[in-house]
């Protein structure tokens, strides 16, 4: 028996006979991870930009901390968010455990540090190049920060995409806080985990191939945009 061969056949069948259930799982994966990336970007980008252009006490510590947080284990994040959102926890009254919102929160916690840390690096490099010119033109920190974000937008897009890749591919956190409820919180990765535990390895791997293809297509898309943009805007 050839599991890999079967997996590719299963993946092909999944894609070819794109059934409603699969569509829903893929759709929810995208909805949760895209939302988490948007929120994490809204938090991480301004944070990264601020750290890049401001000088304050404890800045170096904060950078070290952010860089360390990039490697947060998803299971730990899941557990923390679970304990927060559990009825017995501090945010229990929201009643959003085992909902997509809980998954969005967990993924946001997971990737906001990644986006903050990487954009800090990118924006700080740009700041080194731009600082004198922007100060000469009389830009205040806020304006300078916005200008840097705008000018590094294509690099930042890659960073945001890295965040998305991490969010959409992680299973530990969403499994714990989402509960892998059929039709409600079941996403691609938790489906893969479930099918693996059912011993249906070809189907699990087939889904994995669908997931990887999706991420590859997205990355290719951004690479093309970036390439075109660099040629256009220099």
């Amino acid at each position, binding site marked *: 028996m050839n599991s890999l061969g079967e997996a590719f056949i299963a993946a092909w069948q999944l894609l070819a006979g794109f059934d409603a259930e699969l569509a829903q799982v893929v759709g929810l994966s995208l*909805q949760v991870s*895209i*939302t988490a990336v*948007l*929120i994490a970007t*809204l938090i991480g980008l301004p944070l990264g930009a601020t750290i890049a252009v401001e000088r304050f006490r404890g800045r170096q510590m904060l950078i070290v901390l952010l860089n360390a947080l990039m490697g947060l284990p998803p299971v730990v994040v899941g557990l923390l968010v679970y304990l927060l959102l*559990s*009825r*017995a926890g501090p945010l*229990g009254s*929201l*009643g*959003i*455990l*085992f*909902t*997509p*919102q809980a998954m*969005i929160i967990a993924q946001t916690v997971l990737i906001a540090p990644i986006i903050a840390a990487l954009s800090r690096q990118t924006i700080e490099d740009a700041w080194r190049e731009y600082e004198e010119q922007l100060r000469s033109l009389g830009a205040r920190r806020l304006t300078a920060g916005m200008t840097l974000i705008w000018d590094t937008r294509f690099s930042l897009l890659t960073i945001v995409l890295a965040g998305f890749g991490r969010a959409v591919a992680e299973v530990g956190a969403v499994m714990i806080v989402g*509960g*892998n*409820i*059929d039709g*409600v*919180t079941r996403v691609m990765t938790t489906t893969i985990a*479930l099918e*693996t*535990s*059912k*011993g*249906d*390895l070809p189907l699990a791997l087939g889904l994995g191939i669908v997931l990887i293809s999706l991420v590859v297509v997205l990355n290719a898309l951004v690479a093309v945009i970036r390439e075109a943009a660099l040629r256009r805007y220099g």
Partner: protein
Amino acid sequence: MAIVRGVVLALTLLGVLQGPAAWAQQKSIVVASTTSTENSGLFKHILPIFKTKTGIDVRVVAQGTGQALDTGKRGDADVVFVHDKVKELALVKEGAFVNRNDVMYNDFVVVGPKSDPAKIVGSKDVTAALKAISAAKAPFASRGDKSGTHAAELRLWQAAGVDVASGKGGWYRETGSGMGATLNTASGMNAYALTDRGTWLSFKNRGDLTIVVEGDKRLFNQYGVMLVNPARHSHVKKELGQSFIDWLVSADGQKSIANYKIGGEQLFFPNAGR
């Protein structure tokens, strides 16, 4: 400004800003249950029937029995549907749950490699078989995750008079994971394992494994359902939860359970109120 407006629009489209209210409006309950019932496909069979009858959407969170009981205790589910009768009754007594009912049973089987190093194929005496496995130091894969199956397995070892602690790291291997994952492990290293029949029947990656011991009365596996105590957790949807419990033990619910078959084989045997 255009950026901010774009983000708000995107979030709205993605349904984030609807908030939890939108979820609460639907008639739904959360049931903490076990991986074995979920993996066997039983819920996929019975829940649509229940939904048609009552309009209630049942959201199953499949965990190990130990974790499912904890989820219920914390108030994160409305109903738990698990298989560790001893522990269930203890928790009812303690006040964490109310209205416990027997629902159904299935049975455990011992699976093992066709080469059968412990020479136990066809045995109907599970404790003798376990003794033989330990005597032969044949590899055995245990859940090791405090699940209902794990608890049942430990009771059987005890009945067989085998101290598995001495085999840890050697022939006795704890996977610390769900039933399916443990079967994957057993299949990978040609080990014996105790599994519920439902998971086994729907398990596809069997490799060289086959059923070696079945039919012993001590291998019966009782499932029970109970409501999270609404006196402890006021948000518990007790009417909706109770109607699910009532349906499971009703003639209609029991018949639906009996009707679930894989390859012509019945997986669960309803025994509510008996």
